[in-house]
């Protein structure tokens, strides 16, 4: 799972031009396909690392399996980000992720895009 997870750091002076430039550091995290209990410890470390950034972009497009532990981790991660003054953005939300979050009533709390519910 760890091999499929990528943490990228970009800064305002990155000259890629592909992403919108941000005044602060922005981190992208690709969430693995199986996000259930067994992957939580590694995922928590990844998210802790990502929380250092001002903006964290989570890519949940490839998520196939979710459980309450995972959705709870995302919820606590968002709370952590907000406490630190950072913000969360979504880049890709799979159907499994959207359905799980909706079932637990966490869509708004996780700030998932409305389209994800469709």
């Amino acid at each position: 799972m760890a091999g499929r997870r990528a943490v990228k750091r970009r800064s305002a002076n990155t000259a890629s031009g592909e992403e919108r430039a941000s005044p602060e550091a922005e981190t992208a995290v690709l969430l693995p396909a199986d996000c259930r209990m067994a992957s939580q410890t590694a995922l928590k470390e990844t998210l802790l690392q990502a929380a250092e950034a001002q903006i964290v972009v989570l890519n949940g497009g490839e998520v196939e399996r979710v459980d309450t532990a995972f959705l709870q981790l995302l919820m606590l991660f968002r709370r952590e980000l907000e406490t630190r003054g950072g913000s969360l953005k979504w880049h890709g939300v799979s159907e499994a992720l959207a359905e799980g979050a909706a079932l637990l009533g966490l869509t708004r709390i996780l700030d998932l895009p409305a389209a994800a519910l469709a």
Partner: protein
Amino acid sequence: MSAVDLTQFHKTFFEESQEGLDAMESALLALDSGSTDTELVHTIFRSAHSIKGGAATFGFVDVAAFTHVAESLLEEVRSGRRPVEPPLVDVLLRSVDCLRVMLRRSSAGQPVADAESEELRAELASLVSGQDEGVQPPPAESVSTSAGWRIDFAALPHLLQTGNDPLRLFRELQQLGQLDVIRAFIVDGAPATLAEVDPTLCYLGWELHLQGAASRSDLDAVFDWLDGDCVLEIHPLSTGGSAETENVSSSSPVATDPSRRDASPPGIVKVATDIPAAVRETPIAPAEGSSIRVDIDKIDALINMMGELVITQSMLSEIGENFQQSQLEVLREGLVQLERNTRELQESVMRIRMLPIASIFNRFPRLVRDLERKLGKQVKLELQGEHTELDKTVLEKIGDPLVHLVRNAIDHGLESPSRRKAVGKSETGTLKLNAYHEGSNIVVQISDDGAGLNRDAITAKALQNGLISSGQELSDAEVADLIFQPGFSTAAQATDLSGRGVGMDVVRRNVRDLGGSVSVRSVSGKGSTFTIALPLTLAIVDGLVTAVGGERYIVPLISIVESLRLKASDVRKVAGGGEVFHFRDAYLPIMRLHRSFACHEAVMDIERGIVVVVEEDGRRVGLLVDDLLGQQQAVVKSLEAHYRRVQGISGATILSDGSVALIVDVGGVVHMGRQSKAA
């Protein structure tokens, strides 16, 4: 958290649940007859609890919900808040019946709950929590409510570690109706920072609204496995859910139509509930791939036997490798040992299929209790020989005939208390069931001390049905035999016990299909005894090997009365070409087997052949064979499966020299003899 295929455990669950229900029933009957043993209540409670737990685990929600209500009622009994009274035992016995049906439907993949089960569940629910005493919450709390439920659910930290997952739980709730998450929150005491979070612990809580017709017990069934893992409060919703909701059921299919539960009118099932359960129960067909529980001792014996066989085999191989004439005696000893090992191994293997007849006998206390009440009779049931073991296949098929005989004995045999008193008998009739071994047979006897067979009524009915002609003199045995004729019933008035299209003829046919026989002995005013003789197993038959022409025929020992050599002068010719001979005060027809089975080069002279007298259902014939070759156990191979059905032959077997011998179906041969006599 890899997904486990729970369906592999379903069969075990159903089997264990049936056993649990049997235990519940026995304990309830013991309570009903006045026992005050508190362990009985614990037994009933434990059985209900196990069924509920299993049903909830495997997703049989209706079964779990039903058992939950019954369990709640039992909890009140267990804690001494509710006394054991006949009406309570009644409703619990009906619950056992209902659960049997529900489990059978679950195993067949059919819809489980119906109007009858819902009605009974409501009845149980109305008894629970002393609602009939007005102490506890109003009925709306326990039975279905159209408005729905408010569920406050907060996980305790260890919830996820127990394998529970709220996500799965919410999916189950969705099946019950429209689920709205009003609020999801992090519970007090959760770590303040992500670094402190243990991802295996749960820190979440929810306020949920479930709208629809789900009953409280439906919800309880869903939350049953979270006992001790969460803080839970459930209250009825008076109006619809709040506007600030996250509706989660709109995009999800709702599998259960909540209106289904109350769909059919309850009146229809009333008729069925009046019929005692054991009677109503449809025969349990031997399910495909049915399993058997084997006592570990039997397996150990088998393994021991196997060890001995291996030793013998290696000894014989050693002799065989370098054989000298001087070792002949050792070789003989080895072969004797091999024969003993093989026989013991065979016995051990056959014992695996043997189960105690108690599993059938245990049905009867309930049946008798129900019939007593229904017919207003008093019956004392005595069971003997419950530990007698019988082949599983035979056991499965003998249940219904026995139920029929017991029912007949109570319905037709035993008199009403007033009638018994009038003839100087005790008001309580006695019904005895006894099972015992007799040679290679199992004998099951059902005897009552009732009025006995009514000879006049039977002959009158037989005359009316054209079974006998007027003026025909019949022996007691022949009169008794008439009751086994198809369509024969002397019941003056059809009760729901008789008139089910099942008569004594079916009993006899079923017993015959098992290779057994049924007979009746009756003394007017003293009672009747029905005796069923069954082979220990269907797979092996003890037989007498006979020679007819160049062929070998095996006559089952169970049917043989005697073998004798006749003189020509003993034989009388009768009209139509038949032959009879005098045997113990009766004339028996002679059947020349070579003629029946078209064998060539057989002994034609009756003085040179041997007559084997066989009996089936009280009728005897003499079979003429060339010679008797010996006694042998034959492993029965179906002729029908490999060739086709042949009248007078029940199967085939392979003899020690590799040749095939046919096994004589004595019932069929006797029938053929009667036909030819009639012709």
